[in-house]
């Protein structure tokens, strides 16, 4: 047995050396959780998406574009890249929601559930600030019909 002990140790060392390559985290800009409820004319919007675009006109030149899906309960949560939350700052908000594509008319534009002007990136209407301690409902959006 004595002869194979160094071999076993060598093996153990190799395994540890290989495993040592794994792990390690990644840093990034600090993100603040943002979540709210979307309604259209008071009725819950059950699908669609929300984007917060940094508002250059009000001095926010952050390159990130926080984005979130609207769930069946009308609630959206913002992600920046793959991370939950959004950087603090001033934003314009885009909301879009459509029905699904009609399989029989695969190239038709699906019917929009929100007035298209609320998703026009060139003429944004809604504004919101991402803040440290928001009041309840700060990120809720009620869009006129």
């Amino acid at each position, binding site marked *: *047995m004595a*002869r*194979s002990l160094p071999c*076993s140790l060598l093996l153990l060392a190799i395994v540890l050396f290989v495993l040592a390559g794994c792990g390690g985290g990644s840093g990034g800009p600090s993100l603040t959780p943002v979540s709210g409820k979307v309604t259209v004319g008071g009725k819950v919007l059950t699908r669609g*998406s*929300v984007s917060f675009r940094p508002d250059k006109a009000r001095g926010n030149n952050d390159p990130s574009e926080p*984005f979130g899906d609207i769930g069946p309960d009308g609630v959206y949560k913002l992600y920046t890249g793959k991370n939950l939350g959004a950087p603090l700052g001033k934003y314009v908000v885009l909301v879009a929601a459509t029905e699904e*594509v009609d399989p029989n008319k*695969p190239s038709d534009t699906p019917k929009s559930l929100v007035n298209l002007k609320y998703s026009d*990136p060139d003429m944004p209407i809604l504004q919101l600030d991402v803040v440290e301690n928001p009041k309840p409902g700060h990120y809720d959006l009620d869009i006129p019909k």
Partner: protein
Amino acid sequence: MGARTVTGARRAFTLIELLVVIAIIAILIGLLLPAVQKVREAAARAQCQNNLKQLALGVHGFNDVHKTLPHNGSRNFTTQGQSCCGAGAPRWSWIARILPYIEQDNLFKQASVSETTNLNANAVVLDAISRTIPILLCPSDNAITPRTDAANLSPIRVGTTNYKGVSGGNWGNGETRWRWGSPNGPFGSPLGTANHSGILNGNGIFFRADYLRKLAINQIRDGTSNTFMIGEVIPSLDIHTSWPYSNNACGTCGIGPNSKRVNGTDYAANDWPNVYSFRSRHSNGLQFALGDGSVRFVSETIPIARYRALCSVGGGEIASSDN
């Protein structure tokens, strides 16, 4: 394991020693196999890159002869709306128009690609559009071809492609993060509220209604070495993908590269507002042919504003249109 003293007995390996050797070999193979896989993928990527290069050279060949880039649809069309939908009109793609320049002259003649031949004109043309063109297939993706589920054409059998023309960086559909309106395409302000702007009025080199303008390669304002011309797609993830038909041979950079839902799953293949774009099976990114014929690998983490800018030809009114 006391040493035996019997004369002539040879010293043998013990079980432990054997196991250790086998374990070390196993680790080495474990390290080697992924490397072999990577080499195979690199070879596939290189061939894919070569295909892109051939297509770009075909576009240049066409441009040299006709003094304009190949167009989608028919120059006989007079409105943007005529670009869609179906095989019952001469809605040929830019790929169909460069066939003679990628050594597919016989196919070009069989399909009678022109300003007047419908894609479903007769059995001979229908046979031609079902053909598979080898340089349109990327070996990293096992695309099913011909396909019978292509958008607007189904159930017609039609040859598929792993490459589409770049329509530009403007887009007015799908999730909010893909919506981007500027700069406008050659026809000025977006139609309505930016909706459809990237399809009928793209700010890139190829889009569905580009028969209404003439653009030559020397009119690309941003410079041909700064403008994406042809990109990679995965046909099984986008039913708007086949080589003969204009609405199946263009894609947008408004939608980010390798687009997926926020939860990481693929969109439905018919969800064109979110998949009429570029993607590949190479790891971490995708390749584009640029206007000058070079091919560049683009990381899928490229900032989307830069990605969109690389796909537009410069925004303004580029060239006068026919009418």
